[in-house]
């Protein structure tokens, strides 16, 4: 869109009268009816008319000069920066309100701004005091459990920061790092908001005897050479207390014996891994016997070990 002043060949400072006379001169020259053989004259005439439409009107001309409308008379969106563009900007500090808002103030304001509506009442309906409701925050706790407490389940009393005590029921078989959610035991809600939950993250201390594999309990059980070779009936610890276990003859290292149902309650088993212990001190009789002993079923225990 060309500048209407340019189209009419006038200056911005020219008077209304000067613009009118310039327009008339051009209109006479380019009127389509006096230029029947010049099709481009019609376009030129239109251009001149539009330009004069703008500049010939005192108000429109003034608005165009101020940049509020463009050459075709359309509103121009204001290009100026508004103060709100700086509302969050650095440098705003000097215009900070002295009134200030501390945290309590802010909560009051939030409480008024987001008040809960009376049930059924529409906006502005009855109910008067609009109150702010928000669910309470979740509270985080950490709890370290003995291995046996963790696999068998227990109840532990924890003291909350606000002085309340809370009995936390630990389900049997809780895992290290597992989070137990106690509904409604977190921070109180605001207004009608429900309280938050307490989230208790459980750490399970390792046990010197018991190991855990999923729901199963693994126990490494040292046995003597005689027990391994001849078999035996031994007392074996389980997470619920000792039980008797029959070791079959000829059990070697790594033999896994299953104690059915002795793992995590209702889900797992206990496995007993035998670890035959060679006598650490001199046993001359044993040594003498082994020197002359010819196994009936010779084995190569290192078969299968690849050294490449």
């Amino acid at each position, binding site marked *: 869109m060309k500048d209407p002043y340019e189209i009419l060949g006038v200056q911005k400072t020219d008077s209304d009268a000067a613009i009118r006379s310039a327009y008339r001169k051009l209109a006479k020259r380019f009127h389509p009816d006096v230029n029947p053989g010049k099709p481009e004259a019609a376009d030129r005439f239109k251009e001149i008319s539009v330009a004069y439409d703008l500049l010939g009107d005192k108000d429109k001309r003034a608005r165009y000069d*101020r940049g509020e409308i463009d050459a075709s008379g359309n509103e121009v969106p204001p290009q*100026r*920066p*508004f*103060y*709100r*563009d*700086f*509302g*969050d*900007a650095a*440098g*705003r500090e*000097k*215009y*900070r*309100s002295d*009134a*200030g*808002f501390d945290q309590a103030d*802010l909560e009051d*304001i*939030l409480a008024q701004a987001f008040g809960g509506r009376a049930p059924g009442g529409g906006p502005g309906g009855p109910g008067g005091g609009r109150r702010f409701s928000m669910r309470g925050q979740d509270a985080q706790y950490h709890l370290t459990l003995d291995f046996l407490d963790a696999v068998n389940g227990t109840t532990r009393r924890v003291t909350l920061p606000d002085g309340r005590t809370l009995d936390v029921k630990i389900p049997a078989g809780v895992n290290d790092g597992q989070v137990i959610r106690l509904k409604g035991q977190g921070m109180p809600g605001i207004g009608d908001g429900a309280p938050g939950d307490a989230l208790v993250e459980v750490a399970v201390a390792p046990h010197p005897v018991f190991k855990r594999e999923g729901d199963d309990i693994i126990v490494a059980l040292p046995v003597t050479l005689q027990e391994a070779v001849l078999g035996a009936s031994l007392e074996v610890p389980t997470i619920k207390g000792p039980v008797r276990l029959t070791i079959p003859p000829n059990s070697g290292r790594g033999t896994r014996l299953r104690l059915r149902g002795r793992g995590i309650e209702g889900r797992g088993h206990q496995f007993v891994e035998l670890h035959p212990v060679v006598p650490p001190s001199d046993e001359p009789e044993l040594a003498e016997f082994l020197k002359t002993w010819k196994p009936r079923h010779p084995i190569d225990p290192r078969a299968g070990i690849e050294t490449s």
Partner: protein
Amino acid sequence: MNITEVTALFSDLSQVELVRWVDQGWVIPDAEGTAYVFREIDVARVRLIHDLRRDMDVGEDAVPLVLSLLDQIYELRSQLKAALRAAGRG
């Protein structure tokens, strides 16, 4: 921007009037020696006051009230944003 450049942005704002706005604390330009230096935010504020006085015909005695309320809103907005950020939703 110096004071001449600022008043040049308006067809009807004299330096005398702008200085009065500064004296009343409506606008707080930086001072460089004896001259005022208007930063972008100051110019935007001058435009705002100009709009208030001219377009909205807000009386001179009401301008401080309006500005004070606006400043409080901006302060509140920034605190609210900070609070929401702190609540993990910002």
